[in-house]
């Protein structure tokens, strides 16, 4: 149903990958997840999520 997109930070240290119900920010050096934001299904209001 959803596609995704990716954006790289200006200094190249992070990449943000959007997906259907949120976005995940990754460290491009370690490839670890820095943070993740998830949206409630069916709504447009974002909510913070755990790292």
């Amino acid at each position, binding site marked *: *149903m*959803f*596609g*995704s*997109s990716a*954006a*790289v*930070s*200006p*200094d*190249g*240290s*992070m990449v*943000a990958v*959007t*997906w*259907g*119900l*949120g*976005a995940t*920010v990754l460290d491009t050096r370690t490839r670890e997840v*820095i*943070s*993740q*934001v998830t*949206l409630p*299904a*069916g*709504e*447009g*209001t*974002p*909510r*913070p*999520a755990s*790292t």
Partner: protein
Amino acid sequence: MRSAGCRSGAFTADGRRVLLLLASFDPAARGFSSRWQLVSVDPDRPRADDTGIGGTHAVPVHELAATVSDDAVGAVLWGFDAGAPATRIDLTDGSQAALAVPARTVESLGFLALPAGAAQLWADGTVTLYDRDGEAVQTLDAHQAPVRDLALSPDGTWAVTVGDGGAVVLWDVDAPTGRWSQRELLTGHRGDVVMAEIDPAGRQLVTASLDDTVIAWDMTGDAGFGALYPPTGSAGSPASRSSSGRDCWSRRRGRRAARGSIRRPRRTTRSAWRPRSSTPNRRAGRRDRAGRHGAR
């Protein structure tokens, strides 16, 4: 069908936040239009904040696509159905401008948000450029097959369009007028080119093709740039070099391509260049719809 979700995103210029463009069902319009909203995320906390920028768009949410420009100052909303409205949004203040899309019988492959407006890619190889007010200001016709992607250099002085038939077209952009003029055709890919990216310094262009190659083009012309790609520790000389001094490296299926496995980049005139095929690639078409140029 309620298919709310994140459509696109980009980092702010200082790299400290990510702007996300969200879409949701519009109950007031009983689904005939969508609500959209811009939120800001701090990667370090994490925390999502409403920017107060949002609105509605007259496309059902399950057909709504959107892209945010690389510098996070503009976005475009549109619908996949022919004739669906398209709107450019200034993300600094939320102002909107309807794009004056020309009436054409050709399939539109999607839009890209640019700092100074927007671009529309067409299946016949045409690219339509729009200004901030949504007016169509220029039509580019260098491609003779579907155009799949477009990238603008960070300083706004040059750009590249890529598409089917291995086409990689460089453009000069006149800063005062915003007019694009064709500079050069880069040859190297054997298959349809589906993605182009430019590094933040504007020194390197990377293009990806369905022939399983990625080519990094040295856009500076000086000899010292090639150390960036392939990665440190790999062999150091370029796979080929253009007559204009432009070096390139190629990767095929994760391995560095052997010398001579790609055609030598060269300066080519428009009249001498022909795409290998004018048939739209089905794989690329699906990818455009679901990925690069906006997600459903």
